[in-house]
């Protein structure tokens, strides 16, 4: 019963969103339809990817031992951890929202916060297929400059965030240990 109640609560914002859409459709059908078609196409794209991500997360949880993540991305991983986070991040994988649950999983398994931030940043901005498109449209000079500067920015962001959260690591503690993703 309690479990059911929390599920209902989780969906409350989504119900609110549906109410906004209904109001918009009633108030201005033209704008409402346009908004609805954009959100539907995005929704379809996400629905296609999210189940796959959930399966990968489940496998990750069962097969990747905590000590491995701690060793390669944890507090003692140093430069190697940073390089590994960058390699993971630049690999050709899905959009950024796919990376959030993975990042949460890495934190839970003992990865260093700076490495998780670096992973998220490279995933977002420096994916290899994305760079290929960028070179094609904006030129090699632009692409190389952006890549280098963004890499520096992402690493700095990682260390700043780690510093900020050093005293209050809520990202590590806020979750019930039995709850996954």
């Amino acid at each position, binding site marked *: 019963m309690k479990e059911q109640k929390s599920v209902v609560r*989780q*969906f409350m*914002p*989504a119900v609110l*969103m549906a109410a*906004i*859409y209904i109001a918009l459709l009633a108030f201005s059908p033209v704008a409402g339809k346009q*908004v*609805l*078609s*954009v*959100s*539907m196409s*995005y929704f379809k794209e*996400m*629905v*296609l*990817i*999210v*189940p*796959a991500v*959930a*399966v*990968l997360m*489940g*496998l990750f949880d*069962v*097969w990747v031992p905590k000590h491995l993540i701690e060793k390669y991305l944890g507090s003692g991983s140093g430069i190697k951890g940073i390089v590994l986070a960058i390699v993971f991040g630049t690999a*050709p994988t*899905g959009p*950024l*929202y796919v990376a*959030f*649950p993975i990042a*949460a999983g890495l*934190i839970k398994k003992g990865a260093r916060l700076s490495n998780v*931030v670096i992973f998220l*940043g490279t995933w*977002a*901005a420096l*994916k290899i297929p*994305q760079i290929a*498109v*960028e070179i094609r*449209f*904006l030129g090699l000079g*632009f692409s190389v400059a*952006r890549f280098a*500067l*963004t890499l520096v*920015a*992402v690493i700095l*962001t990682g260390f*700043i*965030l780690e510093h*900020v959260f050093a005293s209050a690591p*809520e*990202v590590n503690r806020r979750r019930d240990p039995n709850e*996954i*993703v």
Partner: protein
Amino acid sequence: MTTAIIYSAVLVSLAWSFAKDRTKTRQALATSAKSLVNLAPGVLIVAGLVGLVIGLIPGEVISAHIGPGTGFAGTVIAAFAGAVALLPSLIAFPLAASLLRAGASVGTIAAFITTLTMVGFVTTPFEAKQLGLRFTLWRNALSFCFALIIALVMGVIL
């Protein structure tokens, strides 16, 4: 394309896992089902926000504000536009190239692309659910500041 790569990876991993240990695989899939329920509300909210933002703000309005002669103000506006927008890079880079040809500065384009990829206004609820609100706000705010710095540096060196 991306979807095909992801699903091939999923199928290969699942087959490998199943061959190695059935019980563990079943356990993994139970976990997956649980995460799916956890992810579902976020998916609905993000899809809803994307529709509202992209559907209600036309592209012409955006390009009118960051085009030629808008200077650093244009760069800042471009950074905000990038933070709010959610475009696949296949569309974003051609768009950026056309803005560049239309007279927008290199810095403005760099700011737009950097915030577009690293700052996600509409995905904030989803990120916060996974990683905490404080983490999300810090990461996005810092990425936004760095985007402006990257824009300034690129404007100077290119």
